[in-house]
């Protein structure tokens, strides 16, 4: 089989039907809910959830790629194009996120970012909010957009550079490009370390504007990394099943499985750390975040945690499970839904409050985005040989054995 990937007809059909079914479900959701006074907020909340979730998967893949460059890792060389394919969804995710954020900003926050509403910082208004007034120096439309643009531009510039050099390496090879990637990867990690935290505060934490948690950025980042690892393992397995990536062996799959396992633990650890400290201290302004999630979304919130924690822990613990395509696919799909639910609860419990629920609209829009995501991802994979030609560690990767 040739190294050039083409999208199978079946995949085209499935992604198209996902989009069509999703759109139909979303249309039902719109038709049954458009008279609700929260409808606009709900629609934009959904936009924000899906834009952020799928953007975050691509960003997680970009982070993982930069991490491999910065650590001069060898084993990943033969799955590098898969990681690049996923990171390649980044520009589309960024575009969607920017559009949603722009609409929300133009609507003065649309009840999602209430700090964008001028009334909340107007001392004459009865909506005036002391705490928001106090955070005005950081949380204001102008600075929010300066930061947002800085994040997105930085991510895009680094992504563009990595991709360009990766394709160039196929043509000319040599170690110059490798060391350049090494330096750029390390530089990206420095930016990402700050931006992953502050962007989580800006885009998500500021929805619960009275509340703050210094761990929040890490928590969001861990979820993004775990989702990215799941998508990497699922895509690799899919390509293997189609007969591509002949030189990716069980040891590579095992390694990505280990990453999935480890990042699930990272996420669970941060969930618990944030939760337990706030529960223990029991301070009025800190517990609000959990109060609404525990009172109105108790089952969803804790089953989300249990699934994202216990599934990978119990099922992926053994070596054999991490080498088994079926087990990895099952766990991957389940925790991917779990992490979507996590993002859903982070955003909509804050923006819609106790009335938020998962209905046709939520499922429909999520399916549309899944379909688009897979389609863009598969399309990205057709753009370059699935096996890098001149990666300096390719030989090491091909003989990877653990």
């Amino acid at each position: 089989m040739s190294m050039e990937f083409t999208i199978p007809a079946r995949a085209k059909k499935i992604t198209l039907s996902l989009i069509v079914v999703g759109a139909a479900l979303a249309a039902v959701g719109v038709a049954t809910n458009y008279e609700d006074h929260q409808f606009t907020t709900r629609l934009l909340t959904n936009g924000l959830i899906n834009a952020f979730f799928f953007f975050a998967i691509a960003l997680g893949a970009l982070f993982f790629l930069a991490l491999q460059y910065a650590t001069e890792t060898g084993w990943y060389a033969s799955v590098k194009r898969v990681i690049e394919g996923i990171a390649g969804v980044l520009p589309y995710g960024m575009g969607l996120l920017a559009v949603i954020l722009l609409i929300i900003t133009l609507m003065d926050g649309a009840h999602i970012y209430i700090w964008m509403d001028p009334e909340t910082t107007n001392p004459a208004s009865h909506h005036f909010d002391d705490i928001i007034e106090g955070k005005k120096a950081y949380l204001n439309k102008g600075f929010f957009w300066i930061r947002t643009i800085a994040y997105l531009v930085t991510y895009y510039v680094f992504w563009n550079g990595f991709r360009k050099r990766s394709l160039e390496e196929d043509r000319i090879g040599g170690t110059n490009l490798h060391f350049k990637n090494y330096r750029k990867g390390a530089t990206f990690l420095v930016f990402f370390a700050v931006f992953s935290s502050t962007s989580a505060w800006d885009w998500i934490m500021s929805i619960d504007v009275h509340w703050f948690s210094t761990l929040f950025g890490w928590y969001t980042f861990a979820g993004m990394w775990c989702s990215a690892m799941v998508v990497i393992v699922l895509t690799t397995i899919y390509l293997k099943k189609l007969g591509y990536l002949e030189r990716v062996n069980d040891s590579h799959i095992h390694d990505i499985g280990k990453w999935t396992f480890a990042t699930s633990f990272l996420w669970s650890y941060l969930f618990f750390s944030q939760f337990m400290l706030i529960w223990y201290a029991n301070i009025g302004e800190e517990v609000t975040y959990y109060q609404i999630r525990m009172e109105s979304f108790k089952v969803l919130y804790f089953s989300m945690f249990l699934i994202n924690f216990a599934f990978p822990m119990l099922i992926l613990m053994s070596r054999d499970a991490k080498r088994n395509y079926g087990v990895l696919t099952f766990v991957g799909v389940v925790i991917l839904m779990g992490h979507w639910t996590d993002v859903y609860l982070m955003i909509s419990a804050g923006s819609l409050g106790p009335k938020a629920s998962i209905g046709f609209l939520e499922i429909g829009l999520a399916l549309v985005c899944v379909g688009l995501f897979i389609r863009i991802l598969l399309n990205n994979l057709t753009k370059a040989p699935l096996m890098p030609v001149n990666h300096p560690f390719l030989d090491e990767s091909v003989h990877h054995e653990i």
Partner: protein
Amino acid sequence: MSDKVIFATYTDEEVLKDGAKKLVSKGIKINEVFSPFPIHGIDPIIGIKNTRLGIMAFLYGLTGLTLATVGMRFMMIVDWPMNIGGKPNFSYLENILSFIPITFEFTVLCAAHGMAITYLLRNKTLPGMPAQNPYPSTTDDRFVIEIRVSENGNYTSEDIQNLVKETGIEGFEEKEC
């Protein structure tokens, strides 16, 4: 019982691995391999069963988990209810979150120590125990395959010697023991 043991010395672990594969494919049973560091992938070649240390780790961890839970429940709830930060002190379950970190730590402590001690006992390598490797240089830069003639009924000592000598060995020795 007197037995002949054949030791083949190699200078490279990959050569040893290829040699072992060749010998095993001819039906020779390799009793043991000595090396300064773990050789990846040698276990399935010479037919060593998967370690059961993982099962023991689980049992030790379970012991730690139980001990921590029973101990903390007795100390903090039953014997002298502790009021810390106004948390309910009459029920372990309602307060379980504050006990999780210690439970986790104690589970890890028991599993890790149990595993290390079991490993040393099973290998007979507790501090002060006499060394068992036939060649001290296998703790430095040499790799050795050990074949017992008594375990290879189909081959004579000479047959084995001839086969071993084809595998890129550095040294060769036959011992009675």
